[in-house]
């Protein structure tokens, strides 16, 4: 959604909403902590709070890829964890596996693999078998994934998201402002 559309007037027949300002990203992007794909000093930033088991996130995944391809070096894409565990029983564990892969320098490979194979969530044997093909140390991945080594980090992402107004998954922030439009590439590109 273009910046100009983030402030708008909306009316109901009785209850009236005044000027609406979309929430801001309260946890700034940092190269040291965040998972960043693209140039760290790129002029445009797209942040996603996502859940690996969420079908809408799965549908948004190729759209983000299209956006990245279109904008190239102008865009940095940031992914933060927001597993809705009461609806998606495997989401938090999937996030743990992705974070464990990050410890081996392969976050994005695992992130992409999980979104491309959402049907495998809950089947660790299959995921770990594929992790070996991605060049990961499977034993370490399994240990860290099973021992909740990175659970605190995931909860930090989640709590930061709540404070920034994440309202479901996926939630995107375009240059620091919550994006309320559709997660289609053409709409995201327009907003960026």
């Amino acid at each position: 959604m273009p910046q100009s559309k983030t402030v708008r007037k909306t009316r109901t027949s009785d209850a009236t909403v005044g000027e609406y300002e979309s929430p801001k990203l309260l946890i700034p992007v940092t190269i040291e902590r965040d998972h960043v794909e693209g140039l760290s000093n790129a002029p445009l930033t797209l942040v996603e709070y996502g859940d690996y088991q969420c079908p809408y996130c799965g549908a948004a995944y190729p759209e983000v890829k299209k956006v990245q391809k279109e904008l190239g070096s102008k865009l940095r894409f940031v992914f933060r964890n927001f597993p809705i565990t009461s609806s998606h029983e495997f989401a938090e564990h999937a996030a743990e596996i992705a974070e464990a892969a990050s410890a081996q320098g392969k976050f994005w490979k695992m992130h992409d693999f999980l979104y491309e194979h959402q049907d495998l969530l809950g089947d660790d044997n299959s995921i770990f078998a594929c992790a070996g093909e991605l060049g990961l140390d499977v034993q370490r991945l399994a240990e860290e994934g099973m021992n909740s080594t990175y659970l605190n980090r995931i909860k930090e992402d989640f709590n930061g998201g709540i404070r920034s107004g994440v309202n479901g998954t996926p939630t995107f922030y375009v240059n620091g402002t919550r994006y309320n439009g559709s997660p289609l590439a053409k709409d995201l590109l327009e907003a960026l």
Partner: protein
Amino acid sequence: MLRSTRKKHAKSRRETKSSGILRAGSKAPNFALNTTPDQKVSLHDFHGRPVVLVFYPADWSPVCTDQLSLYNEIMSEFKKFDAEIMAISVDGIWSHLAFSKDRKLTFPLLSDFEPKGRVSQDYGVYKHGIGECGRALFVVDSRGIISWSYLSPDGVNPGADGILSALENLNNKTKS
């Protein structure tokens, strides 16, 4: 920096309040609404504790479902403030029961069904002609006074940040 940004954000949200919705400082109208076919919940039941009231247009609609699932996910955050959360729509109790079971909701859904929308009207969030309430949030303090209210645009899930900031402010006031 985080704190100042949050304050600024909180201010911008306060400024979006409508003329119809009850505002901070108003006494929260009491109600007694069914949460099961034979059980009513009254606002007075929670006197002495903060209460979060979530008015939403309809069971089963996509935005409402996301919104309530989110609150369900962060019940522990509300508990930190000893706050009770309850959601209200004009749907009948049987729809509420099925919806709650399907989404595994752990807080009560109240049925503003008969007289239709009466409580929503009392809070200034009923939409005549459409026959639903708006997507509105209220934080009521332990004395039954509204300490924060917010009406979200149709189709926009308001999230939980405003609620948690309001509960924090309440907590800070109580301590000072």
